[in-house]
């Protein structure tokens, strides 16, 4: 039966049908739904791990123990997991092991657009890349087979346009695979110099055998059409090329590393002009040129962002696909942009309002709260990667003594568990004095509300220990640890002022569940027009429920959840919760 599945659903389905026993991940767009879908199969034990490095390491243990394993992450997650990945390559597997990494060309929801294919070459591991949901499912099954046959971890690269595009998939049944017997093999699995010297040789030999596999596998496919133009491509670019150049011959690579040398030579010899269409890095192009094959790639196509059919047609055929004039909305002024914003009632809002008001240097981090950098809050000085908020904050005051007493590091609860704890230990150990605000909204909100070690619930819904952030901070040596309600503006303001200036490390846990999770009945706030001076102070909160209409400020009762932060900001007592007007 054919079902309409997203790439992520198809990857999960492929793992299910391939008999995968265990799966782990840390959420990250566009990879998150892989584990969410896997979690629904009771035959599979699936877990959110604390971060990607941990997910990979747990997965490694499970594969060595004999299980078939899938681990998933977004592209930047692979940076976090790179250390175990590089050495896992030397160890080999026992049960089949597949690592899915989802790239984000065009940065629809990421802080960079690195090309994960480089990791395959770096770690000397095979990498597959599907071009639609059917292939996503099929490739997972082949990848696990290859993993066991070649005794290697295997990578599968997805991208936003594969993970989040739905197409029809033929679904099948699960084929049970028994857990492979475990036997100790320390010479193979204890990575220390004497063993690793031997294992590196094995890795290089394995790569040679994989090169042979690349020549033979059906993952790579020659599509002969007209011979004037030949294009080498993979993944989403294959679909874009098919759209743009329906007549061109194509070498479609399903195995993107290692490359099939003879196949490339055969294809090059069979066409008049040879092109590579690949998003981001010239990964194929450089390897093909190194073989002495003349090919055009990045001299035509950008190194940044996505590559669409019109551009392909324009660069290769000399004309874009469609030429009717663009219907312009308005010739003079582009329409106002609609950037993402903190939701009405978001507990992060008050924090950034106050940080801006107190003119503090904010070392930010990644999560919904990164939106605190946007107008009108604009209360963030830098944001690098998950966990960097606390450690970079320490660096600010170490690098410039004048900043001492002004540096506030901001981090979310999920991010604190992910990679904030080691940074906080560093602050304490190295006699820092920064204030760390842990924005504890009780969930991983940015990626769509996943559980984490602080929520007391596992991915598959089992109750578990809820780790206590305050106790962790105290155990890490922070003496000054306080908790405050994100909706209590006065208390929050006082504690930030006091703790930012404190001559020792301090932590303030700002508590309040994500407003989207609170399903209780809401009483919206309303404005007393007599009292409202129209000063617009409340507008500095950047709340979507507030708007200015001429001189007046209005509240959209359909959006307002009655958090009451604007009530506390107003100097004229003009805002109140509905129903409390007469009080």
């Amino acid at each position, binding site marked *: 039966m054919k079902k*309409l599945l*997203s790439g992520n659903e198809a990857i999960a389905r492929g793992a299910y049908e391939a008999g995968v026993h265990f799966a782990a991940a840390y959420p990250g*767009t*566009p990879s998150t739904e892989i584990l969410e879908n896997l979690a629904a199969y009771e035959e599979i034990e699936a877990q959110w791990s604390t971060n990607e490095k941990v997910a990979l390491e747990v997965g490694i243990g499970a594969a060595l123990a004999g299980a078939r394993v899938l681990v998933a992450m977004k592209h930047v997650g692979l940076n976090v997991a790179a250390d175990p990945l590089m050495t896992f390559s030397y160890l080999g597997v026992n049960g089949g092991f597949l690592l899915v990494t989802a790239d984000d060309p065009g940065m*629809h*929801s990421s802080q960079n657009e690195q090309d994960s294919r480089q990791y395959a070459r770096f770690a000397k591991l095979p990498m597959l890349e599907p071009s*639609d949901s059917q292939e996503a499912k099929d490739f997972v099954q082949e990848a696990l087979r290859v993993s066991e046959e070649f005794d290697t971890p295997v990578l599968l690269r997805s991208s*936003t*346009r594969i993970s*989040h*595009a*739905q*197409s*029809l998939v033929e679904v099948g049944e699960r084929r049970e695979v028994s857990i492979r017997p475990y036997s100790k093999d320390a010479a193979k699995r204890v990575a220390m110099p004497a063993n690793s010297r031997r294992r590196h040789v094995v890795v290089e030999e394995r790569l040679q055998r994989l090169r042979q596999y690349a020549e033979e596998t059906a993952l790579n496919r020659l599509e002969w059409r007209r011979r004037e133009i030949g294009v080498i491509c993979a993944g*989403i670019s294959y*679909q*874009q090329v*098919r*759209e743009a150049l*329906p007549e061109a011959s194509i070498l479609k690579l399903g195995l993107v590393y290692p490359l099939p040398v003879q196949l490339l030579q055969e294809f090059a010899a069979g066409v008049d002009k040879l092109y590579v269409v690949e998003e981001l890095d010239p990964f194929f192009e450089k390897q093909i040129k190194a073989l002495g094959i003349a090919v055009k790639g990045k001299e035509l196509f950008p190194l940044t962002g996505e590559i*669409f*059919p*019109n551009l392909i047609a324009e660069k290769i055929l000399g004309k874009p*696909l*469609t*030429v*009717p*004039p*663009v*219907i*312009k*909305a*308005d010739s003079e*002024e582009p*329409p*106002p*942009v*609609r*950037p*993402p*914003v*903190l*939701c009405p009632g978001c507990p992060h809002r008050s924090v950034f309002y106050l940080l801006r008001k107190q003119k503090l240097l904010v070392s930010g981090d990644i999560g*919904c709260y990164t*939106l605190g950098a*946007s*107008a*009108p809050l604009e209360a963030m000085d830098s944001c690098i990667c998950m966990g960097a908020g606390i450690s970079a904050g320490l660096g600010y005051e170490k690098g410039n003594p004048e900043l001492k007493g002004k540096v506030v590091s901001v981090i979310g609860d999920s991010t604190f568990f992910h990679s904030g704890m080691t940074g906080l230990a560093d602050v304490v150990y190295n006699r820092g004095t920064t204030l760390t605000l842990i924005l504890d909204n009780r969930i991983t909100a*940015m*990626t*769509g509300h996943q559980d984490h070690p602080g929520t007391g619930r596992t991915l598959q819904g089992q109750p578990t220990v809820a780790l206590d952030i305050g106790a962790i901070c105290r155990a890490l040596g922070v003496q000054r640890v306080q908790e405050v309600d994100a909706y209590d503006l006065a208390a929050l303001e006082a504690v930030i002022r006091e703790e930012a200036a404190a001559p020792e490390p301090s932590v303030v846990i700002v508590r309040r569940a994500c407003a989207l999770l609170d399903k209780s009945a809401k009483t919206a706030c309303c404005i007393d027009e007599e009292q409202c001076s129209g000063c617009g102070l409340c*507008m500095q909160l*950047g709340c*979507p429920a*507030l*708007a*200015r209409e001429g001189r007046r400020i209005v509240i959209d009762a*359909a959006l307002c959840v009655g958090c009451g932060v604007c009530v506390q900001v107003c100097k004229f007592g003009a805002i109140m919760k509905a129903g409390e007007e007469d009080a």
Partner: protein
Amino acid sequence: MPKTTSIVMGGVGGQGIVLASKILAQVIQDHQLELKVSEIHGMAQRGGSVLTFVRYGTAVHAPLIEQRQADYLFALEKLEAWRLLPYLRTGGTLVCSTQEIKPMPVIIGQQQYPPQIIPALEALAADGTLGNFLAINALEVACACGQPKAANVALLGVLARTLEFPVDSFLHALAAVVPERFLAANREAFLAGFHAV
């Protein structure tokens, strides 16, 4: 070349674009056609612009739609219709809700909400740039059916008017996609939209 139909669906995060595209996808699937649906998740969901592409026909390669390629533009908010207009080919169909949701740059007074969107669209329809222009206030229609959240489905009713699929296919798809307890109100909203134009 086999004909592919391309539909761009846009709105504001939270308006239910994804559900509307799901229902439409179900209709297309029920007619045994090839299709691809492409969504943008993530940051876009926090009240930002949301965009979904639906392409169907006998064979579909790219899941994406580029400027000037859409046969239909379905917009749940008029500023989004305005913004997404370049996707539509000349003579294409625009189905749009006249609802207004102010984006943050407008709320904080940095930019102005374009005041004349609907008259400008009407002018484009009058000179034939738009082949077909259908606008309703989908929110009001849905509210009248007692389910403000069904504005997406009310506007889908308008789109259904212009597509080649019979109305029964939509009702069937609604029942397959919408949870039981919301079904009656959604059916009513869909039919109200369908008969509103």
